[in-house]
C-alpha cells in the first residue's frame, strides 16, 4: 500500500516537468515529424503521407554539399573553440590563484554576451570589410597593397564569428571540470617526476574530458543548426543546413523544411551519442 502511495505521489511530483516537456518538446517535435510526411504546392500544405520530401532531400547532391559545408564549419569551429576554450579555462583554473580574480576574469569572458548575437556579428563587418578597419590598417602599414578579400563574406568570416560567439560555451564546462581536479593530484604528478607538459597530458586533459565533451556538444549542436551567422558572414555565398531550412520556410515549403529538420536532428543526435560514448559525463552532472 505504502509503495503504491509513494509511486502515485512520485508521478504527481514529476508531472509539472513532464507537462512542460510534453508541451514544449514532444508536441512540436511530433508536429515536425508529421508535417515532414505531408505534401505541398506553391501556396498550400496538404496533409498526406508521402516519402517524397525525404527522397528528394537525400537524393539531391545539393543536400550532400550543404551537409559537407556544415560539417566543415562545425569541425573548424569545434577545433578552434576547443583550443581557445581549453587554454582560457586552464589559465583561469590553474594560473589565477585568487578566487576573486577568477570570478573577475570569468565575468570578463562573459562580457560579449551582454549584447545580442546579431550585433556581435554585425560588428565584424566594418572591421573586416573591403574598406574596413583591418584592411585600412594593413594597407596603411604597407603590409599589403591590396585589400584582403577573404576577410569578409567568406568561410573565414563564418568560422571567425562562430568561434567568437561560442568559445565561452567551451570555456565554462572545461573550467568547471578543471576546478574539480584535486590540486594535490598535480603535486602528486610532479612528485612522481612528471614535467608540466606530462602533467597536462596525463592528468589534466583526461580529467577535463567530461567538460570537453559537454562543451563540444554545445558548440557542435549550435553550429550545426546555425543559419544567421552563415547568412550574414558569408554574405549569402555559402549555405548550411540551417540556412537551407530557413530558406524553405521563407518560400512556405514547410513539409520540405520539416524533413530537413528531422534529418538534421538525427544527424546531431548521432554526433552527440558518439561523443557520449567516448566520454562519461555523468560525474559532471
Amino acid at each position: 500500500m505504502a509503495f503504491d502511495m509513494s509511486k502515485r505521489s512520485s508521478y504527481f511530483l514529476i508531472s509539472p516537468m513532464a507537462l512542460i516537456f510534453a508541451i514544449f518538446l514532444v508536441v512540436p517535435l511530433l508536429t515536425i515529424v508529421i508535417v515532414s510526411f505531408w505534401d505541398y504546392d506553391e501556396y498550400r500544405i496538404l496533409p498526406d503521407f508521402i516519402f517524397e520530401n525525404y527522397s528528394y532531400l537525400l537524393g539531391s547532391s545539393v543536400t550532400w554539399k550543404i551537409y559537407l559545408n556544415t560539417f566543415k564549419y562545425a569541425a573548424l569551429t569545434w577545433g578552434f573553440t576547443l583550443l581557445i576554450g581549453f587554454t582560457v579555462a586552464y589559465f583561469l583554473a590553474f594560473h589565477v590563484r585568487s578566487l576573486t580574480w577568477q570570478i573577475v576574469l570569468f565575468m570578463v569572458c562573459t562580457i560579449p554576451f551582454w549584447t545580442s548575437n546579431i550585433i556581435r556579428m554585425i560588428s565584424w563587418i566594418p572591421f573586416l570589410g573591403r574598406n574596413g578597419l583591418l584592411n585600412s590598417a594593413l594597407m596603411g602599414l604597407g603590409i599589403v597593397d591590396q585589400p584582403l578579400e577573404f576577410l569578409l563574406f567568406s568561410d573565414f568570416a563564418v568560422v571567425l564569428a562562430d568561434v567568437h560567439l561560442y568559445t565561452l560555451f567551451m570555456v565554462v564546462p572545461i573550467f568547471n571540470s578543471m576546478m574539480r581536479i584535486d590540486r594535490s593530484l598535480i603535486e602528486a604528478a610532479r612528485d612522481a617526476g612528471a614535467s608540466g607538459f606530462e602533467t597536462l597530458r596525463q592528468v589534466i586533459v583526461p580529467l577535463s574530458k567530461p567538460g570537453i565533451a559537454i562543451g563540444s556538444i554545445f558548440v557542435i549542436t549550435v553550429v550545426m543548426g546555425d543559419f544567421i551567422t552563415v547568412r550574414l558572414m558569408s554574405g549569402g555565398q555559402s549555405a548550411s543546413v540551417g540556412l537551407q531550412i530557413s530558406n524553405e520556410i521563407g518560400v512556405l515549403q514547410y513539409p520540405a523544411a520539416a524533413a530537413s529538420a528531422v534529418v538534421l536532428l538525427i544527424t546531431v543526435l548521432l554526433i552527440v551519442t558518439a561523443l557520449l560514448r567516448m566520454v562519461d559525463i555523468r560525474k559532471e552532472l
Partner: protein
Amino acid sequence: MKGNGAIELIAVSKHYGSTIAVKSINLKIPAGAYCCLIGPSGCGKTTTLRMIAGHEVISEGDLLIGNRNVTELPPVKRGTAMMFQNYALFPHMTCMENVAFGLRMQGVAAPERTERAKEMLARVHMEKFADRKPDQLSGGQQQRIALARALITQPSVLLLDEPLSALDPFLRARMRDELRRLQQELGITFVHVTHAQDEALALSDIVVVMEDGVIRQQGTPEEIFNKPRSRFIANFMGGQNIFKGTVSESSPAGTLLGRGPDSFLLPGYGNATTGEDLEFTIRTDLISLGEQAPGDAKNGQIPVEITTVEYLGLWVRIVATTDDGKEITLMKTESEFRQAPVRRKEKFIAYWKPEHAHVLA
C-alpha cells in the same frame, strides 16, 4: 636515485607575505630513521614537510639530503617521494597505472614497469586490485596504493602527510604497524607528519614537536614523553600532571618548593634561585592514593578529593581535585584499581616518589 637519506635543515624559514609559517628551524634526521613531526594545527609541521618534499619553496635557509644541497631542486631530483594526506591517487587510472606512473615518467619501458609495479603491489598486498580504479577501493586500500606509488621510484626519503588520519581507529593501528615494518624493511628515511601523540610515540625514532613555526623539542619518544621541556609539550603529549611551586631552598642535592607539610622536593635539581617559580611534572601513572603518604613520599604529596572515576578497560582514569581547585589525573591499571577502589567524593592523599618529578624549563 637511491642515495643516503640523511636530512638536514639549516636555518630553514617559510614566509607567506608577512606571515611566517616556519621560523629558521634546524633539524638533523639521520639516514634510515623514522621521524615524526608533531604539533597542533598551524604549527608549521606540514609546511616543513612540504619544503622537504619540494612542493613549497624554501624562503630562507638550506636543505641537505644525503649531504647534497637540494634547496633548489624539484622533488624527483631530491630522491624524495611524498604520500599525500588524501592519497591523491589519479582517479582515471587503474591501481597498476597509478603505481607505475613514476616509472612511466622516467621513461621505463612498459614490460619492465609492469613487472616492477606488480612487485610493489605485492609488497603492499594489493596485487589482486591491480585493475581496479581508486574509487572502487576502501580508504585503507587506497592508502596502500598511494604508498606503493610513492615507493616505486626507490626514493631515499619517504614523506607522509598525516597518512593515518582518514582511517578508522582499528585500521589506523594496523597501518601503523605496516608503516613501521615497511620502513624497517626498506631502510629508508621516513618523515611523518601527525597530530596524534600515540602515532608519534609508537612509530618514531625521533619525535619533533613544533609550535608556532619553531621546533620546541626533539628527541626519542621516551625523552619527549618523560622529559618534556615545557608546559606546552607536557600538555600536548599528555600523560603528565603539572605542579607549580616557589623555590624555598636550593642546593646541588636538590630543590625544595614551598614550606611545611605541602612542600615538594625535586631531588638532583640544583640550579634554582630562592623565590623563583618552578613547574614540574609527574606522570599520571606514577601518582598513588592513600590515607597518608609513606615515608619515601614525604615532600611529594597533596590532599585531594576524587571527582571522576572513568573505567577505560585496561585502565581506570581518576580525576582528583586539590584544595585550591587544581585537577590532577591518575591512571591506574584495572587490577591496581580493583585492589584499592576509590569512589567519587572520597578524600585521599595523592603522593609520589620525589625522584619521579621532572622539572620544566
